[in-house]
């Protein structure tokens, strides 16, 4: 159970560290780094094991110990993963769905939150409640009616059902978090802007959105991964394999019992993870600049 206890112990030890006399500091410091090393190991080893597995042959899986390194680094499994499962298409579909969904979700969500929190009018609390209640509603509850609606409107066989559904599924949390962030901004900021003569729409774009930069990045982060990782909606509204997202593709891939072996399956997972790693390293930079801007503001 090292996963559970290590960080807790680490944090308590480390929180004290700066205030201790230097003799104990050395010991505490060592323990601290050992525990941090352990934490990193726990997070990284499964992925390393997976990556190594992606180079193994079926024989190696069954005859060699599980921690053994692969005998060679040839790419047979990767070739098979790319030819058996259509991973490039899956990744493209996932991106084509996720990016517009996020954009719409944040645009609509931030605007709605601004109207609900910053502006003053009757009934806004009721509507806010209606949005927030949506957080608690399981996606399962809306699938059946939606399938009917999308079908009748001729949207099936496109990626639109996914984009629309994700946008709406993400709205409650976006609105909820954005109103919380707007609440944290002193009202004087907006009141001052109105006195300077700017309209509400103007101050939304000139003051509201820039102030929310940090929060927008946070919510984009949250929603990106919940959209990217969704299986339920993608599975329900994906009518052809050429529209399959990563999750659906992976599920189908692992189901091909006749042809799939561990190596290609691990390779397929590795490709997905590597793709996410590239994206993540890029995003990570964005997150950091956003957070830095946020802390400057504070």
């Amino acid at each position: 159970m090292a996963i559970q206890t290590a960080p807790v112990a680490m944090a308590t030890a480390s929180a004290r560290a700066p205030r201790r006399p230097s003799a104990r500091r050395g010991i505490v410091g060592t323990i601290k780094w050992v525990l941090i090393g352990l934490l990193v190991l726990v997070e990284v080893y499964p992925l390393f094991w997976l990556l190594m597995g992606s180079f193994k042959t079926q024989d190696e899986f069954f005859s060699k110990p599980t921690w053994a390194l692969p005998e060679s680094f040839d790419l047979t499994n990767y070739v098979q993963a790319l030819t058996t499962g259509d991973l490039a298409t899956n990744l493209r579909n996932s991106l084509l769905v996720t990016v517009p969904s996020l954009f719409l979700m944040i645009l609509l969500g931030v605007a709605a939150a601004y109207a609900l929190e910053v502006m003053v009018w009757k009934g806004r609390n009721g509507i806010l409640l209606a949005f927030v209640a949506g957080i608690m509603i399981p996606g399962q509850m809306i699938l059946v009616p939606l399938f009917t609606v999308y079908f009748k409107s001729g949207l099936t066989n496109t990626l639109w059902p996914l984009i629309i559904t994700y946008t709406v599924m993400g709205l409650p949390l976006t609105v909820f978090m954005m109103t919380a962030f707007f609440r944290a901004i002193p009202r004087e900021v907006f009141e001052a802007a109105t006195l300077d003569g700017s309209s509400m729409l103007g101050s939304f774009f000139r003051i509201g959105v820039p102030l929310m930069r940090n929060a927008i990045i946070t919510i984009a982060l949250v929603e990106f991964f919940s959209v990217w990782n969704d299986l339920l909606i993608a599975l329900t509204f994906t009518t052809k394999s050429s529209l399959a997202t990563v999750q659906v593709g992976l599920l189908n891939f692992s189901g091909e019992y006749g042809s799939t072996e561990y190596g290609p399956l691990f390779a397929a997972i590795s490709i997905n993870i590597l793709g996410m790693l590239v994206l993540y390293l890029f995003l990570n930079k964005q997150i950091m600049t956003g957070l830095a801007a946020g802390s400057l503001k504070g």
Partner: protein
Amino acid sequence: MFLTPPTRRTRRLTTLVVAAGATAALLAGCADSGGSTGGGDSATAFSLLTPAENKVIASELTTLSTGQCSAENTALPLDSQTVAQADVVQKITLLASQDALPVQFVAGTAQVKPDGDLGKNGLLLDYEKTLTDLGVWDDILPAAVSTIKSVYGGMVSLPYQYNIEGIFYNKQLFAANGIQEPKTWDELVAALTTLKAAGVVPLTEAGNQGWPITRLIGNYIFRDLGPDAMKAVKDGSAKLTDPEYVKAAQAIADLGAAGLFGEGITSRDTDTANAQFLSGQAAATYNGSWFLANLNDPAQNKIGAENVGFMPFPNVAGGKGDSSQWPANAGAAMATSQKLYGPKVGDWLSCIATNYGSAVMKDQGVISGFKLNTPVEDVPPLTGELQGIVNDATQTVLWFEALMDAKTTKDAQTNVALLISGSMSAQDYMALLQSDLDQAK
């Protein structure tokens, strides 16, 4: 995967009454909105929906569309799509309620039965009548017809696969341990015990799938109580909680308790189980004829196809059934839409009936329920042996869950892990399934 078809089934909604009044307002126009009917083809393509996990049907039909069936394909082009096995019932329910079924599609077993949602609404083509009219009914093997009719209650599926099941064993390992092919259940258990002592996995199964284990329960019941034993349960003239049925579950639970499935049986998947047998780590496996694809592939089969023996599920001493009654299934239900049927679809069906059997045997080494109209050369010996059994089979039995509703089926397959790991008693297991059956009535 080939075998999941019988494992996913819709619940038989016996309580269902066709909507009236209030419900019509709720889902107006969904249940039975009229489509085009009549003589001409309303379909603009030979749209096909197959399970994503089973590539054989779609790829073979694609091959036919550029070969023997190219004329049919020009008239009505093949448009092939797939659906994940787990989503079949959901997708078909929604498509059918939207009047948007493809021409030919996979469906849940319970859906295509006469009292199922598709059967009840007259959405399915009767292949027997249609193929007879087309003059190609003789291209369907009688054994396949009998299996399809007894599972689905009518000829509503094409036998793109026809599988018989039995125990594949490693001849070398049997010989090395002085074991003859077991003829009775007791001999089988004794043989497996010997093999366990020799340090191999005696009988490997894909335990996480559930069905390979419930198959053993079913076969024990059929051997002990006769081929109609599960029909009696369905009719209500027998209960799964009757001692003779519990005895079967107990026999399989005992295999688990004795460790005869090897370590990690409940989480073992199909690939692992197959690899164990194909690499010689396991001495035997209960499996179906679809396993031939792996057995005939030298890259996978390290023990050599010549070292693989095939035996029926053995007799149970004093039982009413016998080992000549092979367990058989015809894969997932592959139905054709009654509404979309027209002359061009008929041409496709004729072409499939005439050519599919030989083509799929030649291209993929798969046994189907279609007659081999063109002799196929170089059939691997083991495949030939099984094809011979299929051709000669006079009486077949179904499988444990064949006549159960979807929920009972799922509970049977998921809870069997608890049965063989000793977490659930045979009595409790059968009681759970019987209560599911009672609920479905």
